[in-house]
């Protein structure tokens, strides 16, 4: 599924909304997640998963072709950890059992 298909799905479930507005709603949700992570917050969506940011220190890398050392700058990278309920659903467990 791609974003336009997701928007289409949401739009058909909400016939009273303009397609254009559904597009904005979906974009607002994902932009808000990115903005939160960019400003130093984390996002936890129970049952779905959590988005966090990890810090990677600067390190000495290597050009794999020439073997010459290249400096790699420090950076911040986004991470996603799957929520328990979704993880169980992926494995055909609908949450009726514990663990």
């Amino acid at each position, binding site marked *: 599924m791609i974003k336009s298909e997701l928007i289409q799905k949401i739009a058909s479930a909400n016939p009273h909304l303009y397609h254009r507005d559904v597009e904005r709603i979906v974009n607002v949700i994902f932009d808000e997640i*990115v903005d939160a992570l960019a400003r130093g917050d*984390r996002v936890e969506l129970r049952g779905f998963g959590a988005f966090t940011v990890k810090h990677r220190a600067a390190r000495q890398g290597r050009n794999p072709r020439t073997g010459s050392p290249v400096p790699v700058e420090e950076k911040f990278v986004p991470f996603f950890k799957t929520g328990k309920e979704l993880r169980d659903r*992926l494995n055909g467990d609908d949450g009726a059992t514990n663990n």
Partner: protein
Amino acid sequence: MAGKTLTRADLAEAVVKKVGLPRNESQDLVELVLSEISLNLARGDSVKLSSFGSFGIRQKGQRVGRNPKTGKEVPITPRKVLVFRPSNIMKDRINSGRMRRKAAE
């Protein structure tokens, strides 16, 4: 890095503010977006959201694990795991935002 934790309620609030929909309807829409994504993933389909990232399913085979407390070997059953790959746009926005914050500290 005294960050807050955002939840569904904060995402719904963003929809209220930026799209101008009532709060209860915004909450339902946030939930619908998440459940649609979950439904597709549970079916085994990947979900690609341009400028955000993509969620995919990876099949893991059986392997031998160890109970860390007893040291006993236990088989880990084959399973599906969800992997998220952030888009370059997402990575850039987060990295530059965090670097700016760090510089301002």
